[in-house]
């Protein structure tokens, strides 16, 4: 399972999983996008590069997910999947990724709702041996 949704009255709360933090982060981006559209139907036509650096792992997850909201609003880019992702730690945490998706259009895609923002509400990153779980609530 890549991700699952948990009950939340006003907004959307999910957990995303992976063998590594990279995989869990990539799945979290898909989970967030799935609040807005059926991700599996999005065509992989446009490629985007993402680069963020943040002071903590949680902040990195927040900033990484936020990039997709910025891309959607500014370039109408809607995610299909994250194809490459690398997290490194120097003075700060750094994330480099590549994602594919499409230019959003109502003629092509049906939507559910809009994600306004990522939040820190109930956010956690749990790293176990061979299993990383991240939990995020997004404001809709």
């Amino acid at each position, binding site marked *: 399972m890549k991700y699952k*949704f948990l009950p939340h*009255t*006003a907004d959307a709360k999910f957990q995303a999983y992976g063998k590594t933090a990279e995989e869990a982060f990539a799945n979290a981006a898909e989970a967030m996008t799935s609040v807005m559209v059926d991700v599996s139907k999005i065509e992989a036509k446009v490629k985007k590069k993402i680069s963020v650096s943040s002071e903590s792992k949680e902040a990195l997850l927040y900033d990484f997910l936020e990039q997709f*909201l910025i891309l959607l*609003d500014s370039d109408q880019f809607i995610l299909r999947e994250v194809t490459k992702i690398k997290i490194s730690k120097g003075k700060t945490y750094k994330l480099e990724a590549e994602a594919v998706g499409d230019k959003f259009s109502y003629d092509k895609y049906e939507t559910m709702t809009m994600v*306004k923002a990522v*939040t820190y509400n109930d956010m956690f990153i749990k790293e176990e041996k061979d299993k990383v779980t991240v939990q995020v*609530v997004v404001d*809709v």
Partner: protein
Amino acid sequence: MAKTREFGGIKLTEVEKHVWEIPKSGNMNVPARIFASEKLLERIEGDKTIEQAKNVACMPGIYKAAMTMPDAHQGYGFPIGGVAALDAKDGAISPGGVGYDINCGVRMLLTNLTKDEVEPVKVKLIEQIFKEVPSGLGSEGKIRVDDKTLKEVLKKGSRWAVENGYGWPEDLERTESNGEIKEADPETISKEAMKRGRPQLGSLGAGNHFLEIQVVDKIFDKKIAKEWGIEKEGQVTVMIHCGSRGLGHQTCSDFLRRMEHEYADIIKTLPDRELVYAPANSQTAKDYFGAMSASANYAWVNRQMIMHWVRGAFEKVFGKSAKDLGMHLVYDVAHNMAKLEEHEIDGKKRKVYVHRKGATRAFPAGHPELPKIYQKTGQPVIIPGSMGTASYLLVGTEKGFRETFGSTAHGAGRVMSRHEAMRQFRGEQVKADLEKKGIYVRSASWKGIAEEAPGVYKDIDEVVKVSHEVGIGNLVVRVVPIGVVKG
């Protein structure tokens, strides 16, 4: 004996009908006060609304009480429906007390048309509006602005819109703060926020935002309604509900992140990290207030442009000018904002940041911030229902000014998750049900309709009844929708 209730170990005492108090304890600087009927209290049983109100009571420089309005529900840090006044010198300002959708708000405009005149062309009218007003996910506005123009929008607010042909000069005084907060500082808006906001100016967006053609269904206060231009039942009105789009969302996010970085020591002392604030005298507070105000101005321009296109759609369908159709703005209110206001507290006039997160300013007759046309009546307060339910016009009161810093509810408040809504309702069915009730719905997305089905919200009638009975916002008019454009 006063009535008491207990919620997860927190004791509430009814100090006045529909007003419940949690006395000061622990780190609380003031009590918490919950404005709700017993029926509305039941709706928040089990969520964190009350605990969050208690947390807000711990904020520095908070006066009187941390309050929640009748439509309150759980939020992040601050509850939605929360009101808190923090000292503007020794207190603080908090992005979490405003929310992501800065100056999400609602405006209502009049027509001199009746239901009978609009009903036959309703579908045409809604389709025309749908064509004229961009809506939906990531929706792009019809105009392209460069950074220089966008900064002007951020600085001047509604005045920019009117100067550029979107709307009438009289619209300005019929907008809270004239649609222009002077402290707005476009230089505090980040590159990312500009990027998100540039293509979206003049668009409705998605989610719970909507545009409705409505019919006056009941007049509670004939005298005030008449002063506001509402003459009779059956008169047609229009309501527009939206906010500052991606620009505001990004601004909130930017400042939450900045404060978290700068005030790690403050966060350690907080019961919830999302209450993070900037001390009122700090540069960060000044920057946030400048950025929040700029975002608010953007939202006002957004609603002003949308209204302009709605007037245009009516002109096209009826072949008459908007002026001849009597399409005057009644008022425009913000319901996610922190405002710098003066209030009398313990006999002393003080400047405070009144945080209203999912709450509406409701000033009484005679308040200097109200335009001349509303000096006698008090401020029109617009409370939108959910898609397909009634909406209300209330009026601000003296009592509200004293008790809640001039604030009341902002809407219905969700009770069902979006996920659950998708399981329970199908868009096509919801649309068909609404059509049976005489409400024509247009949306870019069917699924979106299911998420906003009327059943997922609290009972708006109960919310405004409580506001009226407590006397913090009194009933004037009820309107019901006949056509909806859902974002």
